[in-house]
């Protein structure tokens, strides 16, 4: 294996035990899946933050790394945790959960990871440039940074992204090379997404059709950044590929498949709304400021129904700006809950069989159907807000 002098020192333990263990993990991944080499990265984004997901085992691992002197060598950010750190009571958090979640966040901060607590680090100062090599976990952010921002990252897991942060390296795998990122299947899309829910659904359907291949999407107009964010999240929920292509001069050598309205419709029907929602969830991935402005516009002078919980999630960096602009106040006055640091899926919020969740995110719908017993419905943003307020 070809290692630089610094990398050899890291592997020997000259830079501390946490760094040595991280190096060991990256080299094993490089051996198994890559070209037996590491690559320097500019940033890391770490998933597996919520105590609900990683439990005592994950906490134990993070504690051991922190106690053996781990410290980040590049910019590193955190995915969402189990609750809004300023409003834990909204999420059915008990004392044990609260303490352990705070401990996870504290240990990661101790190692120099920024307390961003968002799945949209690109709205929170971790903004890769075209051509940057990075090591990100969180599928929606991986797909977005590869496909929209033009950065290079594989789909890291929580532990490997943390190891990458502590060493400033990632395993050199196909996703980090131009050859490994060539489109493998052309997808002719005969469907025009009209709102965020449609964009997420389109990504989800494309990923379902060929879940291992990198697709080149044809017939999709370049959407706004927010629209592409939803496309990325939906795609990441059903595909294991690291990215999609929207435009590529050389075309694609693989086969051709077609996706039309009927396929999108059949998924949508599975998630149709048949009863009044008890929870309306918006913000997967976390809302941008632009989205919050338009939500506030819709909610102005309206009242959220008393039998509905309207939950809108965003990152703390966007939340602060929303407070300054008065957007947060409009949402609060309507009775909507604007929260940060978390989301429906990673929070321990109790959802029973009698709950009906209405969301405009295909990703949330996908995970909620396996992680809760509630009924799941997907609707456009307008529909979501209309169902949440008094008529």
């Amino acid at each position: 294996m070809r290692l630089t002098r610094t990398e050899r020192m890291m592997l020997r333990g000259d830079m501390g035990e946490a760094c040595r263990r991280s190096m060991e993990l990256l080299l094993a991944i490089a051996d198994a899946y890559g070209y037996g080499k590491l690559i320097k990265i500019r940033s890391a984004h770490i998933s597996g933050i919520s105590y609900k997901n990683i439990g005592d085992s994950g906490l134990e691992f993070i504690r051991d790394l922190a106690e053996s002197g781990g410290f980040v060598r590049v910019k590193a950010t955190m995915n969402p945790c189990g609750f809004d750190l300023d409003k834990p009571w909204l999420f059915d958090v008990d004392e044990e959960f609260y303490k352990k979640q705070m401990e996870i966040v504290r240990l990661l901060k101790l190692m120099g990871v920024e307390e961003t607590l968002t799945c949209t680090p690109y709205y929170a100062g971790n903004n890769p440039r075209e051509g940057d090599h990075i090591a990100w976990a969180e599928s929606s952010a991986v797909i977005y940074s590869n496909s929209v921002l033009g950065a290079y990252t594989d789909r890291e897991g929580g532990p490997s992204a943390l190891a990458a942060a502590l060493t400033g390296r990632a395993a050199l795998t196909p996703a980090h090379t131009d050859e490994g990122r060539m489109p493998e299947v052309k997808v002719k899309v005969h469907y025009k997404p009209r709102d965020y829910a449609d964009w997420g659904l389109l990504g989800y359907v494309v990923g379902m059709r060929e879940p291992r291949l990198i697709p080149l999407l044809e017939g999709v107009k370049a959407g706004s950044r927010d629209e592409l964010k939803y496309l990325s999240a939906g795609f990441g929920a059903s595909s294991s590929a690291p990215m999609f292509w929207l435009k590529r001069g050389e075309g694609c050598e693989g086969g051709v498949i077609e996706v039309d309205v009927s396929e999108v419709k059949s998924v949508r029907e599975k998630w149709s709304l048949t009863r009044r929602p008890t929870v309306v969830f918006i913000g997967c991935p976390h809302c941008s400021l632009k989205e919050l402005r338009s939500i506030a516009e819709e909610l102005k002078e309206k009242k959220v129904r008393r039998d509905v919980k309207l939950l809108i999630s965003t990152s703390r960096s966007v939340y602060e700006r929303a407070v300054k602009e008065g957007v947060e106040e409009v949402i609060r006055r309507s009775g909507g809950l604007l929260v940060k640091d978390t989301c429906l899926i990673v929070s321990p919020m109790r959802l029973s069989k009698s709950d009906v969740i209405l969301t405009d995110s295909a990703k949330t719908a996908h995970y909620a159907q396996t992680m809760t017993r509630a009924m799941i419905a997907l609707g456009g943003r307008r529909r979501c807000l209309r169902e949440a307020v008094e008529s």
Partner: protein
Amino acid sequence: MSKRSRRVVTYRCRGLVKGRAMGEALVSSRPISFLGGVDPSSGVIVERGHDLEGLSVAGKVLIIPHGKGSTVGSYVLYSLAKRGLAPSAIVTVKVDLMTLTGCVISGITLLDGVPREALADIKCRSRVEVDGFKGLLKVHLG
């Protein structure tokens, strides 16, 4: 692929995490999810309907097609290892990121590349040796 001597069958695999181990084989042709599928406090497989349900992985050589599920499963292996309840080695047909990560951070010897047919041929409880340096799996017959 396999070399038959009198009472030992040897499979040539790829050593992914170095080390040597010996123990009883725990074999399944179905993948295992460690997150939710194995109890981290006891090492017992709890996935409903799995053919190994109710058996403990502790000290065994686990021979499976691959792991499945979230990379969080790696942490479960780590927890098991700290309590002395981890498998002594894992042998897979094709390794996945979760199992690889879990074995590296927990120091569990890991091989991949065992032929799929071997999953049917190797009997549960047979005595096996794993050499992660040379990438060898030896199964003692009878």
